[in-house]
């Protein structure tokens, strides 16, 4: 049990044991109907918070500013779509450190927690545990906030607070009323700050709201309220004075006297007021009460709080319907009037309930009496509600459906009563204590009013009811009330239902007003109070004197109604026939009436005591009585009337201020005529006023109709907006789910920190760097174990928080084995304000590796490129790259030369720009390569250069592809002019060689043929052939040594003659050094061979003294060079020439030179020698 409450109860008891205001008030039961049953098992005060449209924002604002350690529990009730999972817990959990839980059935409330209503369930609380039930109403008629607030009030009483936040409609208003009645705190969001002000305005309109605040001010106000529970007025040594002061102030401001209200109730409600407005002690509160104009009004309203609804306490109403009403209506005709009075009617639910019951009963009757129900209260605000006769859902929930259908119609969010019921009820401001009671009433329904009064006042009110009622009239009290043991006045018709019937035909006079206090200064108050109290409760002596010795007297009010009477007035007053009246002029016995009236009028006019003497009264027995009567004006228009038998009163003169008067009939007639005129003129003006009002009402009605139409269209708009919002929520839900999946699945370590660098959220990938666990959410980031430099990260986080600028930094982990790029970004909430930071770690380890690889490959590529460049510049070929427009992308010097351009002018030009013999040949193959994408190699081109020489080129074309498409063609050409020349030369040489070889073979064949024809000796034949072919071979050797171009003549001669010389010094050679062409060499060789052979056989070389001289000269003339050689043999004696036969050798000598070389030969043989002269051009 809460200590505050405990202390409160204890002091409450103490206060009850003390005598206050001289009353015998010893009430021990708690008068607040629900608080009495409060179980208060919750370990802390519970704050119920209700919201609808716009509630999320309000909830968030509230939780943002709600301290997490206030020791309060918060229960949030929202109108949730029953078909949607609520995301509230998620959304709100971020706004507070308190745990936010969606309620499950039976959740016990704990302090510093936030509880959320789940979708599609009705939430209530019992014994400190939250209960979930199914809604009993269909969708659209549910009022979850009212339901919860009512159960909260019932369960927790003053230990509860309720808050109504943004929303449309009126849910929460009824519940708030219950909380207030149970002594709880009631707060409402300032409607001007609410997104939807319907609920706040409706709640505020109950007039029961303690404070209207902006949402962010609420948490502190609630905490302060419950904290202040300790400082109570009960700590005063004597709170009697305090209460007196309060009552005085109330009376001064409002004219209502609360001194007879039950102290415990008053004290507790004052105490609550003090808590609400934060008055520290009694003194402070009194000061506020005096100085703050509304405070008296607010306290007044608090004091009058009560719960009411239609057919509250259905059993009692059932009894009423079953037993009382048929009785009331019995034997009543159309001309009769049934009068019913409901004092303390508050907002009118009770009188209208009765009207409905009676209307039901009347429906079964043929003749219908007039029904007048007087609904009275002192709270004008509540009376206005009663006049409006339009009630929220909570008020009509006990109304049986068929009655609801029949007597109510929907009006906006409310239930309005039909006109026929409203016509039966008269609502007026009337103070039961102060104002004269209604009279001739058939039934008084006064439920749950007496409990607010102390026993003394209760005692006094029962006679008032007795006075008001007709004989056998009904009195209907609340379940905790009774007739204060006045069984002499009332008999119980049904004690269980608290229904009583007036007993006795006589009317006991009552003293009215029951309590009248002159307005005095506070300084004199205490005395005044006590004096007044003494007057109410006379001491025994005074009482005895009053009873025994004082003359019979009555006190009448302005209307001449008797409000108090002494004993023994029966001689002068009697109950007249017909409708009973309380008017003294009706009660006075015949004869006394007009005198009495005259005396009263005079006394009122003159403000002096008026005495009428010797007024004669005739009694029923024919006796007459002479009476002196005195009318003595008191305060407040009341007049004391004293009756005395004649001569009992002192004469005029003895009392100078009294006027003595003798009654006259003329006076009386004149008086009546005046009165009549006055009444007529009043009536006329009343009729005029009525007509005016009627007109006004008509125009008001029209306005209402048009407003109704506007409202309908607004309603439709709202429905549309609602649809849109639902859509948005769906989208948001999806987006949220996407986001959640993203966070769960992303490989990028990401951490969300709040403004205090506490962990708000993180992605699972974060665990590669940090040892996060789920429960780390909410912990300071610095607590987390990580592989990164934690303090550095925090420093960056703080920097971003301070500047709002994102930061990016590289991060090496594990000594540079892993690389991350850390981005720290400001976390912005939906308003754009910085609400933390986001740390994003991009693992760039692989990227870094790849970068290194790329760098390496770039190096290689650069090197290759460099090599290619070098190749371009140094290769002995022309190279170029052209695009589809034949524009040069690249070219080397040789190509530039071929194109006839300087190397630095080539790029950007096209092949056609530079067309010459060579480049023209390239155009067609390039086009073909572009078209086919295949290389073309070894295109031969022979072009005439500027110098007129033919040059041969070999050109290759290859495609250069990017993305599978030929974007350029590379060209390589080489100059093969020299190669071609060499090839031709080689061919020529080969042909020549073949020709020579074949000719040589033919020559050899011829030699063989000729030799065979002349030699019969085989041995000789072979030797001759060997020598002849050997000579030819020797010259061949010499020619080969000189590439078959030329051969030295001397070499030929020496080769032929050396075998014959053999150191014998018989051969002499002389002549210039001459080189001979091959044909000359070969022909000469064969000629010399035959000459030498003959010399060795027959000539100089056969004799020891033989000599051979070979001399040659070269002559030059205009025709060319000519070789002339002379072969001379001497020193021997040879055969005669005739003996020498014409042989093959001789023929060859004579003819070969001539035939082959177009030369001459003179071959002369003589016995002394041989001379052969040979000559040939060469």
């Amino acid at each position, binding site marked *: 049990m809460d200590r505050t409450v405990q202390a409160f109860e204890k002091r409450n008891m103490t206060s009850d044991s003390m005598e206050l205001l001289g009353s015998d008030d010893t009430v021990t039961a708690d008068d607040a109907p629900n608080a009495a049953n409060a179980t208060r098992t919750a370990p802390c005060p519970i704050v119920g918070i209700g919201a609808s449209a716009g509630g999320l924002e309000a909830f968030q604002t509230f939780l943002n500013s709600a301290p997490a350690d206030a020791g309060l529990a918060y229960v949030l009730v929202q109108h949730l779509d029953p078909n949607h999972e609520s995301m509230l817990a998620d959304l709100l959990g971020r706004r507070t450190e308190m745990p936010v839980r969606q309620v499950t059935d039976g959740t016990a409330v704990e302090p510093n927690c936030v509880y959320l209503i789940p979708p599609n369930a009705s939430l209530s609380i019992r014994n400190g545990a939250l209960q979930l039930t199914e809604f009993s109403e269909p969708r659209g008629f549910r009022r979850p906030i009212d339901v919860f607030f009512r159960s909260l009030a019932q369960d927790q009483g003053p230990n509860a607070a309720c808050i109504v936040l943004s929303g449309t409609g009126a849910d929460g208003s009824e519940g708030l009323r219950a909380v207030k009645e149970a002594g709880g705190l009631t707060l409402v969001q300032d409607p001007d700050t609410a997104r939807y002000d319907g609920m706040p305005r409706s709640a505020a309109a109950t007039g029961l709201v303690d404070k209207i605040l902006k949402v962010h001010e609420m948490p502190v106000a609630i905490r302060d309220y419950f904290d202040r529970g300790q400082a109570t007025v009960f700590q005063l040594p004597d709170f009697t004075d305090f209460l007196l002061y309060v009552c005085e102030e109330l009376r001064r401001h409002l004219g209502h006297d609360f001194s007879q209200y039950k102290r415990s109730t008053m004290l507790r409600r004052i105490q609550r007021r003090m808590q609400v407005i934060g008055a520290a002690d009694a003194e402070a509160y009194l000061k506020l009460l005096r100085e703050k104009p509304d405070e008296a009004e607010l306290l007044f309203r608090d004091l009058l709080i009560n719960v009411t609804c239609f057919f509250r306490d259905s059993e009692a109403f059932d009894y009423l319907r079953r037993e009382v009403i048929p009785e009331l209506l019995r034997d009543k005709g159309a001309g009769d009037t049934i009068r019913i009075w409901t004092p303390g009617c508050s907002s009118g639910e009770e009188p209208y309930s009765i009207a409905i019951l009676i209307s039901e009963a009347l429906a079964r009757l043929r003749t219908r009496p007039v029904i007048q129900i007087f609904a009275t209260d002192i709270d004008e605000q509540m009376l206005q509600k009663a006049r409006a006769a339009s009630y929220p859902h909570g008020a009509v929930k006990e109304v049986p459906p068929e009655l609801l259908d029949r007597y109510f119609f929907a009006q906006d969010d409310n239930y309005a009563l039909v006109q026929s019921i409203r016509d039966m009820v008269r609502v007026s401001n009337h103070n039961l204590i102060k104002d004269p009671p209604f009279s001739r009433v058939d039934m008084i329904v006064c439920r749950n009013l007496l409990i607010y009064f102390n026993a003394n006042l209760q005692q006094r009110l029962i006679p008032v009811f007795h006075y008001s009622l007709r004989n056998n009239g009904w009195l209907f009290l609340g379940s905790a009330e009774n007739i204060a043991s006045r069984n002499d006045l009332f008999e119980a018709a049904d004690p269980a239902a608290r229904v009583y019937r007036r007993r006795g035909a006589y009317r006991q006079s009552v003293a009215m007003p029951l309590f009248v206090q002159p307005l005095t200064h506070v300084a004199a108050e205490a005395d005044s109070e006590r004096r007044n109290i003494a007057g109410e409760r006379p001491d025994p002596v005074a009482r005895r004197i009053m009873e025994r010795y004082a003359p019979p007297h009555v006190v009448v009010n302005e209307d001449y109604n008797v409000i108090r009477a002494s004993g023994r007035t029966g001689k002068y007053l009697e109950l007249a026939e017909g409708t009973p009246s309380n008017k003294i002029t009706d009660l006075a016995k015949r004869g006394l009436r007009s005198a009495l009236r005259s005396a009263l009028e005079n006394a009122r006019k003159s403000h002096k005591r008026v005495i009428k003497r010797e007024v004669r009264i005739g009694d029923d027995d024919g006796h007459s009585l002479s009476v002196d009567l005195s009318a003595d004006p008191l305060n407040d228009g009341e007049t004391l009337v004293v009756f005395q038998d004649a001569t009992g009163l002192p004469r005029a003169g003895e009392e100078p201020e009294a006027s003595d008067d003798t009654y006259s009939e003329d006076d009386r007639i004149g008086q009546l005529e005046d009165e009549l005129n006055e009444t007529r003129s009043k009536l006329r003006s009343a009729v005029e006023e009525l007509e005016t009002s009627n007109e006004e009402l008509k125009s008001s009605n029209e306005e209402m109709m048009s407003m109704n139409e506007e409202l309908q269209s607004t309603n439709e708009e709202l429905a549309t907006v609602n649809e849109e919002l639902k859509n948005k929520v769906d989208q948001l839900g999806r987006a949220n789910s996407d986001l959640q999946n993203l966070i769960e699945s992303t490989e990028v370590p990401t951490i969300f920190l709040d403004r205090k660098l506490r962990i708000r959220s993180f992605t699972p990938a974060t665990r590669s760097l940090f040892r996060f666990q789920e429960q780390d959410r909410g912990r300071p980031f610095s607590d987390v174990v990580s592989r990164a430099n934690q303090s550095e990260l925090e420093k960056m986080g703080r920097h971003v928080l301070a500047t709002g600028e994102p930061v990016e930094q590289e991060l090496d982990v594990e000594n540079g084995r892993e690389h991350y790029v850390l981005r720290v970004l400001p976390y912005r909430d939906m308003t754009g304000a910085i609400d933390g930071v986001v740390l994003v770690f991009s693992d760039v380890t692989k990227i870094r590796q790849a970068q290194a690889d790329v760098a390496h490959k770039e190096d290689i590529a650069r090197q290759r490129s460099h090599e290619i460049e070098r190749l371009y510049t140094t290769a002995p070929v022309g190279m170029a790259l052209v695009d589809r427009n034949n524009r040069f992308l690249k070219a080397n010097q040789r190509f530039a030369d071929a194109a006839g351009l300087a190397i630095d002018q080539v790029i950007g030009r096209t092949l056609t720009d530079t067309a010459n013999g060579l480049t023209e040949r390239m155009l067609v193959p390039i086009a073909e390569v572009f078209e086919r994408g295949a290389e073309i190699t070894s295109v031969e081109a022979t072009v005439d250069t500027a110098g007129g020489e033919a040059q041969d080129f070999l050109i290759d074309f290859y495609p250069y592809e990017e993305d599978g498409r030929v974007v350029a063609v590379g060209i390589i050409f080489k100059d093969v002019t020299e190669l071609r020349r060499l090839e031709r030369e080689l061919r020529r040489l080969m042909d020549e060689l073949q020709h020579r070889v074949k000719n040589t073979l*033919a*020559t050899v064949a011829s030699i063989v043929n000729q030799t065979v024809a002349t030699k019969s000796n085989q041995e000789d034949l072979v030797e001759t052939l060997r020598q002849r072919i050997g000579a030819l071979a020797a010259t061949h050797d010499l020619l080969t040594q000189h590439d078959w171009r030329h051969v030295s003549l001397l070499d030929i001669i020496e080769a032929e003659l050396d075998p014959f010389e053999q150191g014998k010094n018989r051969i002499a050679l002389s002549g210039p050094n001459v080189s001979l062409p091959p044909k000359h060499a070969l022909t000469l060789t*064969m000629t010399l061979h035959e000459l030498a052979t003959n010399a060795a056989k027959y000539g100089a070389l056969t004799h020891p003294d033989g000599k051979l001289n070979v001399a040659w000269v070269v002559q030059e003339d205009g025709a060319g060079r000519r070789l002339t050689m002379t072969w001379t043999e001497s020193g021997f004696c040879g055969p005669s020439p005739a003996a020498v036969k014409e042989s093959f050798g001789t023929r060859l000598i004579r003819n070969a030179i001539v035939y082959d070389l177009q030369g001459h030969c003179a071959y002369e043989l003589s016995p002394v020698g041989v001379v052969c002269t040979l000559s040939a051009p060469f």
Partner: protein
Amino acid sequence: MTSFAGLSVLLLEDEYLIAMDAEQTLTSFGVAKVTVVNSLEEAAKAAADESIDVAILDININGKSSFEVAEMLREKGTPIVFASGYASRKRNPGAVEDAIYLNKPYTKEALRESLAAAIEKARRSKAA
């Protein structure tokens, strides 16, 4: 065997020994007259002046081609045998169409066959 008796043969050959050997061979065939020339000028002169029945021409005469002479003879309808060391006729620049080729060194029989073929071909050509 074709008889070459009474024929007049022009032999163009710049090698003395070959010319001598060929002349003897032709004589042994019964050829009436062998006109041996060793230059293109002489060959042209002989072709123009003398009545030649068949010509045996070396293609390469001191480095020059004998085709001009061959053309002269062909126009006259004289049968021609080209005697050459070149491996095939394809190697012969400007080869005369339909000529009979005789590869050096040639045998007696090869010479005979070539001469016969040339004469036969000319005869057929004339008949056509």
